[in-house]
């Protein structure tokens, strides 16, 4: 059988979700953002929520998420995405409201909003990309930068005495009464991509059902900021990031009930 016999519409098992439009994404080659964008678009499509979805994009590399996924978007000031999502969801409880934030946005400048939105149990989904660096501004230290990790603002490696410790914020959020589902995933292998997609789906359904806050942390790479190839960045992540940020569900209220 020739390729041309296989490549027919009736045999297609995977294609780009239509909601992820044809605009050229500005992300660097190999950037995890692209995979997560794709998953967000796929889940919204599969749940039939295109007409109800409202995304809140952050300040950071994913500031232009609104250019790539064809739903309604709000673009937040740095760190304020969950405050915006709070209002949007409270004013329109029938909508799917989610934020898409990086580590600087979510866990540094926006920490107060992040914690209080989760603590109030806002029925929003939070997609939190943790790549341990500030990508957009050129690779500076993030709250999640690992000890010893070199960045533009800790060029000799992060030191606890100078820079403080890396912040693992997701376990803090899991302790709050308002969170329904808190999980930490990654997108570096096909299996992990599938798990992250399932997590996003659960988070979005929780938002629609008004069940409280869902947090999906995606431990990610920034190969440009880390100065590695995409493949080596994945390996570095597995070898270094997962020890500080281990994958898996941190909290799932519904799982306990079942």
């Amino acid at each position: 059988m020739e390729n041309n016999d296989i490549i027919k519409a009736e045999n297609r098992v995977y294609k780009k979700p239509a909601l992820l439009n044809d605009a050229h994404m500005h992300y660097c080659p190999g950037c995890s953002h692209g995979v997560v964008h794709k998953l967000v678009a796929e889940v919204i499509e599969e749940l039939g929520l295109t007409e109800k979805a409202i995304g809140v994009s952050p300040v950071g590399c994913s500031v232009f998420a609104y250019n790539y996924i064809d739903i309604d978007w709000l673009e937040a000031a740095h760190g304020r995405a969950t405050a915006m999502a709070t209002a949007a969801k409270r004013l329109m409880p029938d909508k799917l409201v989610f934020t898409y934030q990086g580590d600087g946005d979510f866990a540094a400048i926006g920490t107060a909003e992040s914690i209080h939105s989760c603590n109030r149990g806002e029925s929003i989904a939070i997609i939190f990309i943790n790549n341990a660096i500030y990508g957009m501004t050129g690779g500076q230290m993030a709250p999640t930068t690992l000890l010893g990790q070199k960045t533009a603002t800790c060029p000799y490696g992060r030191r606890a005495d100078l820079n403080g410790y890396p912040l693992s914020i997701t376990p803090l959020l899991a302790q709050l009464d308002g969170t329904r589902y808190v999980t930490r995933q990654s997108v570096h292998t096909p299996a992990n991509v599938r798990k992250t997609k399932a997590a996003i789906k659960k988070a979005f359904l929780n938002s629609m059902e008004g069940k409280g806050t869902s947090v999906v942390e995606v431990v990610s790479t920034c190969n440009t900021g880390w100065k590695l190839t995409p493949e080596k960045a994945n390996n570095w992540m597995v070898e270094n990031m997962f020890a500080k940020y281990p994958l898996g569900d941190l909290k799932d209220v519904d799982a306990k009930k079942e």
Partner: protein
Amino acid sequence: MNDKVTLMKGNEALAMAAIRYGADGYFGYPITPQSEVLEKLEEEMPWETTGMVVLQAESEVAAINMVYAGASCGKAVFTSTSSPGFSLMQEGMSYMCASEVPALVINVMRGGPGLGTIHPSQADYFQACKGGGHGDYHPIVLAPASVQEMADFVALGWDLAFKYRCVSLILADGLVGQMMEKVVLPEQRPRRTEEEIRKQCPWAVMGRKDMRPKNIITSLELDDDKMEANNHRFQATYREIEKNEVRCEHIDTDDCDYLMVAFGSMARIAMKVMEMAAAEGIKVGLIRPITLWPFPSKQIAEVAQHVKGILVPELAAGQMIEDVKLAVECKVPVEHFDRLGGNVPSPEEMFNALKDKLIK
């Protein structure tokens, strides 16, 4: 008809007027001297009646960004704060103006700078009227001088905000917020339905119903030419507002020899000074700016043509006086009188200042 006269604080009247306007949401953080706004809303429980959302946010920063989101969704949303909190909101004000969303913000001013005092002040005039945040922008600034105006300016503020897709700011001083007066509240209006909002605000972020093209509310535009075009559009709106929306009250200005220009509680004290002056045979008129931006420059310049001098009493160390001086272009003496740090002058003090500085 709803002409029932009630007695309440300015802050409470504002809260009641917002519910009756059909507000969709309030997001705020307690700070003296405006906390009665949130307290009154929580007491009234409008979510049980009109469906209005009321939320005590974790900070003024969060509150203004909640308002930013609500306004971006075409909803009638508002926040209230006082001076230190308003400083925290400047970033949000800038973003909302840059995104052209219609919002209502209330600043019940207290004495500053810093944590300052909890007593009345008008020292946020520059911050309010000149754009306290970054970039070229203006909110429409309304200055109530009575509890009735605290109530009435809610509807006016929102109507203007939706008309021009801009931010309306009610700039009250602590005295107007705290004092109790008679007030007639507006009649209850229904909140707009989602369909009505979609029609009125086709730009609003409400989900792509019927698969319409996506709506994005953002203040970001990295293409300099496009960002310049955005700025030109904002400025064109501001020129339109300056043309159409200047509001001020003239009191006895037709044949006055001296003019006072004062807003808010200082205008109320100035009115007493006019009586005292009349008793001594001195003709003093008053222009009370109701919109501080756009400023009634033309109106002041007209009256300035036939007066010997102008006194600008402020609870600020000389802020509005700059706009008055610009308006009269040095054609008559313009003098300043202030009390600062939360102090409010007696009419006698103000009258003495008028005599000392202008009549001599």
